[in-house]
């Protein structure tokens, strides 16, 4: 009888799927690991220190804020993930204090001042990155060459190189790849971009590994396919239509492959834009949001003064999420007025 008295009484449903918040967070971390290993391999141990610093800072901030608010949220893994993403968005040679400040800003200001996990309206890692980018632009532009390229020790990322290079460029180039080869940029093939043999932030260079991680998340049903597909799709379409104009070519000549493979697009598309907390809740809403991200990324990248626009585009679209949610409510079952009219 005493055994029986220990029975649980709960409201239905009495069973649950195996999914939990922390499981989601750790699976996302897992899917990011290959890209990080590549980054550390390519840029050296220094980048591992950057990653460790940003993760430790994020977790410490989460712990302290949790203590302050009497919540223990460290174990849900969200702070670790934020720290990891902040680290991935840092150039390998960034001063350590910048990485730490980015993590602290992400957790304390962006996440906890709004109430912690689930209540923030902006992706913390991206907000941290953007904050330090505008505050310490110099420190955030210390690029290193990956170890596969031996002829230079430091240089800009392909997008940055083109953006600054084009300002003073007086010759003619047919497109970004042509421009890079004319200027003697060390990493010159699509394959270099795809595999990650280019300078860039620690975790964003290998399009291949990020794509694999992203597909893993879709297969694990953690990420809906709508956001990545419509983000890349709309961005690629716009780039294809208008991207060639800057090089004096006509419409429909943009170098889609170049733009899709560079500048952290893969990292942003699969791991930042799909952040559950800061993306819409309906499928319809996700499509609107993703197309918005694609459009803004295109505008900032092709016409803006920053070399790349993924972070800003996602942050701007985060702001629209409540509005998108409001106008994309699901259609209720039994709401059949429309069908009746058709009859």
């Amino acid at each position, binding site marked *: 009888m005493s055994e029986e008295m220990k029975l649980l009484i709960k409201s*239905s449903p009495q069973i649950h799927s195996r999914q939990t918040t922390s499981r989601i967070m750790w699976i996302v971390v897992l899917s990011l690991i290959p890209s990080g290993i590549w980054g550390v391999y390519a840029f050296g141990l220094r980048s591992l220190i950057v990653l460790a610093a940003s993760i430790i800072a994020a977790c410490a901030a989460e712990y302290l804020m949790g203590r302050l608010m009497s919540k223990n949220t460290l174990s849900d893994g969200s702070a670790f993930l934020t720290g990891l993403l902040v680290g991935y968005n840092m150039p390998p040679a960034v001063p350590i204090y910048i990485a730490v400040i980015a993590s602290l800003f992400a957790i304390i200001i962006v996440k906890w001042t709004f109430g912690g996990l689930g209540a923030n309206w902006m992706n913390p890692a991206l907000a941290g990155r953007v904050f330090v980018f505008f505050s310490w632009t110099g420190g955030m532009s210390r690029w290193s060459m990956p170890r596969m390229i031996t002829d230079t020790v430091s240089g800009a990322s392909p997008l940055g190189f083109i953006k600054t290079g084009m300002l003073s460029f007086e010759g003619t180039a047919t497109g970004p790849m042509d421009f890079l080869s004319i200027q003697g940029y060390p990493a010159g093939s699509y394959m270099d971009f795809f595999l990650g043999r280019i300078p860039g932030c620690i975790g964003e260079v290998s399009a291949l590994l990020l794509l694999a991680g992203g597909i893993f998340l879709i297969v694990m049903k953690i990420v809906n396919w709508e956001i990545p597909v419509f983000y890349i799709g709309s961005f690629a379409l716009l780039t294809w239509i208008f991207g060639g104009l800057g090089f004096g070519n006509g419409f429909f000549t943009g170098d889609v492959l170049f733009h899709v493979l560079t500048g952290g697009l893969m990292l942003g598309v699969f791991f930042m834009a799909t952040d559950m907390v800061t993306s819409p809740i309906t499928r319809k809403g996700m499509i609107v949001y993703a197309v918005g991200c694609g459009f803004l990324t295109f505008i900032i990248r092709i016409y803006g003064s920053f070399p790349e626009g993924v972070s800003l585009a996602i942050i701007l679209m985060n702001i629209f999420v409540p509005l998108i949610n409001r106008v994309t409510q699901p259609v209720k079952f039994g709401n059949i007025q429309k069908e009746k009219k058709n009859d």
Partner: protein
Amino acid sequence: MKGLKTFSKGGIHPHGRKNFTNKKAIVKAEIPDTLVVPMSQHLGAPAEAVVSVGDEVLEGMQIGKPTGFISASIHSPVDGRVKEITDIFLVNGMKSRAVVIEKTEGFIPSVKEKSDDWKTKSPQELNEIVKDLGVVGMGGATFPANVKFAVPKGAIAEYLIINAVECEPYLSADHRLLIEKTSEILEGIRIIQKIVNPKKIAIGIEINKPDAIDIIRRCAAAENLDLEVVSLKMKYPQGDEKQLIKAVTGREVPSGALPIEVGCVVSNVGTVNAVYDAVVMNQPLYERVVSVSGLGVKNPGNILARVGTPIRQLIDACGGMTGKQIKVIAGGPMMGFAFYDLDTPVTKGTSGILVLTDKEVAEAPQTACLSCGKCVTVCPMGLNPTKMFKYIDHSDYQGAMDTGLMDCKECGCCAFTCPAHIPLVQGMRLGKKMARKKKVS
């Protein structure tokens, strides 16, 4: 598996675990010496006891009479004497009057004769039998069957849909009935056909019961019953009336309306069997098939038990508990009730008794809502559970009602899926209760 029908919006695929019981033939439970027969075993007004302490009762004698339009008769499951009339708690935590009957020593259940009389009776007379013998919906909702079968004036029943979906995990009582009592079920369908007078009859079966689909198809053809057997894709909650109608006919029952609005009458396989028992065998509804299952029970099985039998006895008949149990549930795991008093009696609506372990329940701590939108994706009613929950959490019941709270039927898809383990269904229940209390509409 192309071309299989299902409903379009939402739905989930919980682990079925049907294999625990779906090959186990129905066995009769021993009848206990004392039976506790609740007066509230159906949706609607409780029945009123028409016997008093000390009265002798006979098997099948009416002991509770309906007290309203939506109410049902209760019959004695055994010969015996009324020991007391008392209040008990049902598995859902509600209080109910109950007649406690002491079985006459040496009681042997009567053997009933099959009679073909019904073929000469009018639809109204048949429905009257259904009513008098206390038949209610056996799928779990226990709505009085005669009310459902009485098609209102002006409405036409185009479809009679037999619900053999049994989408709740673990349960296989309906599955076993389809296989073991095929001809009874088909005759029951003919009786309901006569009462309802539909243009078409269809039976919806999920494809995890291929043997049932096969046998029903063959027997219906052999007996010349014009029955469309619709194989359905597996998806919870397909056994809900609205989802089943959508899957079979493509029609959507409007919010707040009954199936007859779109020309449909839906009846569960268990109900069909009860109608057969009532009309052909002249046997009131005082027994039902209960699936006893779960990893916490030693030998899961399907048991034909008399109403009023303590649930403990069914678990014991299945070898008892393994000791790893953490929850005991009456009904299916998605919509059933967790309870702790194993002496609670079996009622007309007890489709299953599940003894679940930690592994099956998958309890986890609750975290903040991540706005992942999974609850919106899986809601079969096209609602926004997270938004409604937040309204209710902030005591804004009007806001929740305007978002569609009353369309929620507590199927549990949202709460099952929620990675943050937020008790969404509990929230909806609270919201409905509070809205009613505060007269918000």
